[in-house]
């Protein structure tokens, strides 16, 4: 998911280096607050990707450090998370960027006659 600029400057797309797991977690949380198990199930359904629990917690910690998600009060032993306003904005920017690159790729495939 390394979509971004090659000029070395930190662009507004803060998710470009966050990794695929982080983007998937953010997309899942865009649908509402979820805890770990629900996130894994939702991402499996949504993208066909089975996130390992270690990968999931790594992504959650990274996103929380970036201020893109926040934990909600614990329910029993489970800690639900929700997307923050900066998280939603970052996801929007990232998806726009992915869409732009995807469109460019499709156009090139058409022009190249492949």
């Amino acid at each position: 998911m390394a979509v971004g600029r090659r000029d070395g400057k930190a662009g507004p797309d803060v998710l470009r280096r966050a990794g695929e797991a982080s983007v998937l977690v953010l997309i899942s949380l865009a649908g509402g607050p979820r805890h770990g198990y629900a996130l894994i199930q939702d991402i499996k359904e949504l993208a066909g990707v089975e996130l390992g629990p270690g990968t999931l917690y790594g992504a959650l910690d990274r996103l929380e450090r970036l201020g893109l998600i926040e934990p909600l009060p614990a329910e029993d032993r489970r800690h639900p998370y929700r997307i923050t306003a900066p998280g939603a904005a970052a996801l929007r920017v990232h998806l726009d960027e992915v869409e732009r690159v995807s469109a460019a790729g499709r156009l090139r495939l058409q022009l190249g006659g492949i």
Partner: protein
Amino acid sequence: MDEPRVARLVQAALRCYPARWQRRHGDEAAELATLLIRDGTPAGSVALSYLAGAAREWLTPRPVRQPVRRPRRRPGRRLSAAACALLAAACSLGVSAGLLASAGPARAASPSPARPPAPCQPARCQPGSAEPVPAVGRPQVIIRVAGHGRSC
């Protein structure tokens, strides 16, 4: 794999995380592992994911919150912790492979012809025991001496 063994494997993997992480996510992570294994995810895969996560957790630099002087730590501590986590992963994989090998009909699938059981020499195996030591829960080691297979 039986449940207590699975739980031990996952607990061992979770213990590889830093204490701060264990305090925060430990209980939930253990519960999540139980749910995933119940859903059919292989226990080894869950444990391995946690071990890889632990290695990443130790190696990821954290922002320093307090500019307070702390006692100097050994420089290789993070690396050795990561190496420890990887070693534990390798060991757990080895144990799992051993369990699989011992549980399956390894002898039936063996291409070598069946030999009559040779008496195990006490001097070469265990002192005071004329019987071969049964290898329960681990693969049998076959020592070939002068063309005879002996289980020790």
